[in-house]
Structure formats: C-alpha cells, structure tokens
C-alpha cells in the first residue's frame, strides 16, 4: 500500500511540466488560490 496524504498537513509540493511544456509547481498557488488535485484513472 502506497502512502497517502493526511488532512490538515502541508500538501507535498511537486513540479511537473504541463502538456504544453510549462512548469507548474503546487507552491505556485500558495497564497493565491485553492487547488483541487484530481487523479484520474485514465482517458476514455
């Protein structure tokens, strides 16, 4: 079983390139926006 994130803890930061090649970090949104992270099960 992989680890999971916990409620009311700092969200683990990450940086990934979006599909257009722009780097996006979770911390980019800090102090600006809430974030809803959606992990999909695949495109159909």
């Amino acid at each position: 079983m992989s680890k999971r994130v916990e409620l009311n803890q700092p969200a683990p930061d990450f940086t990934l390139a979006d599909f257009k090649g722009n780097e996006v970090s979770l911390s980019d949104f800090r102090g600006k926006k809430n974030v809803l992270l959606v992990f999909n099960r695949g495109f159909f």
Partner: protein
Amino acid sequence: MAQLRQDYDKFTAQDTEVIVVGPEGASAFADYWQKNDLPFVGLPDPSHSVLKLYGQEVSLFKLGRQPAQVSMDKNGQVRFVHYGHDPSDIPANEEILELLKIMNEELNANY
C-alpha cells in the same frame, strides 16, 4: 471529467484551480484536452512521481488506477482527501464546492 468541466466556473468562483494529474504522456493529454475543450491545468506524469507522492491506488484486479481527489487551501494545507475504491467512487462536486466555500470564509475571517 465531464462533470468537472461543467462545474469549472463554480470552482473558479471559489478561487480554486483544478489540476488533473495522470500517467499518460503529454500528447495524450493534449489530444484529450483539445477534444473535450478542457479548461483545467493538465499535468502528464508518466514517471508516476506525483501519483506515488499522493498515493493514488493501483488495483490490478479492478483494471488500473482508482480516482482520487485532494484539495489544498491557500496556505498549502490539505483540507480534503478522497481515495476512490472503484472507478465510480468520486465525490460530488457540490461536496467539494461547499468545503471550498468554508475554506475561503475561514481564511477571510483571519485577516
């Protein structure tokens, strides 16, 4: 995803960015985003780094990855976590939107 698309304006109204992370490559994301006219941030994660970091469940018996949703407030704190146990186990947008509204009210009350 269609449901999220439909309610995207409601998320924006709650000062919330929707970010979709998946194991597909950039070209699969680009095709899907174009075909469905999606407004979200789309992050291909073919090395599964973020998928693992956030513990998305992989079930060999249920054909792949199960859906998961995690929401953070503006302070970067995790405020909502839902790990699906089957492909249809996805929380209603209304439930998440209600929480986002509360999160915003809390933050505003602190200023």
